[in-house]
């Protein structure tokens, strides 16, 4: 082109980094323990259903307040509850924590609750331990 000598080079760059996928307000981590616990009693459709609910929460500005998913606070983490429907007779409780600084949610563990009562103490204590370990390992600088 005639004006080639007049053209300035254009720098094009892509910032490589994390951050939620498009449409999502929060990143979502899954602890191996949570996955294996869930797969011990959920079939693939049921697991997928719970995963979808997590993604619903991850689309919210504030995941702990969602009109379509039952979320309740426990200590300094949260419990996602669902039952029936595609879960049939299962009463699923899935626990997650959040790092607000880097906008990440993490699924800590999943159980099948036999009744509608409060979360068993041993579950609450174990999730507290996992949350601490997860935050120490992945969010110590947040």
């Amino acid at each position, binding site marked *: 082109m005639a004006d080639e000598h007049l053209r300035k080079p254009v720098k094009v760059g892509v910032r490589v980094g994390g951050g939620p996928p498009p449409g999502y307000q929060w*990143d979502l981590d899954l602890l191996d323990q949570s996955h294996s616990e869930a797969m011990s009693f959920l079939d693939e*459709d049921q697991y997928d259903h719970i995963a979808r609910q997590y*993604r619903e929460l991850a689309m919210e500005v504030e995941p702990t307040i969602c009109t379509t*998913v039952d979320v309740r606070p426990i200590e300094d983490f949260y419990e996602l509850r669902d039952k029936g429907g595609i879960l*049939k007779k299962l009463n699923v409780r899935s626990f997650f924590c959040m790092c607000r600084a880097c906008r990440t949610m993490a699924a800590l563990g999943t159980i099948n609750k036999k009744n509608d009562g409060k979360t068993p103490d041993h*579950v609450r204590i174990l999730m*507290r*331990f996992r949350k601490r370990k997860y935050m120490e390992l992945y969010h110590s600088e947040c």
Partner: protein
Amino acid sequence: MNANRKGSNVINKGGIKMVAMEPSEALAGLSEETQLIVVALTIMRNRIEALAPADRDDLFELIVVWGKTEDAEEQKNTHRAMIEILSQAKVSAKKQPGPSHLRERSKGWATHVGNKIRALRELAGLTQVELSTLAGLPQSHISRLENAEHTATHITLAKIAKALNVEVRDLDPVLD
């Protein structure tokens, strides 16, 4: 055990006399089975002492829970939780990918539920917006459910059922 044996130290702690001995001295005279138990307890004690204070607190709280529960299943699960803390099980997390298409069986259920919601909504003479207002749900969510793009939770079905003045079971078939 002879507290005055040469090489042994007698400690007086709060009026209680204790003898500090070398490990081999402590085990001498015990049966092999008892020696194994003592060694196991020593290892356990050392491992507990090495835990971070918060982890140790959690472990002790679990021990109390384990002691109080009479349910065998609860005891087993509490025991498992204790092992996880004591063994300092490594935490490993993976980023979760974005949404995927509904699996075939889920699609079948979602389609049935979606058709039910639409049919009952139309029977009630409501638009999606009106239903969403009555149910306290986003209109976009009602649309996704009716189009079988998402699987509803129990709380969502309960809100929709209440808004339509029907029972949840009218929306939620039992899967085979």
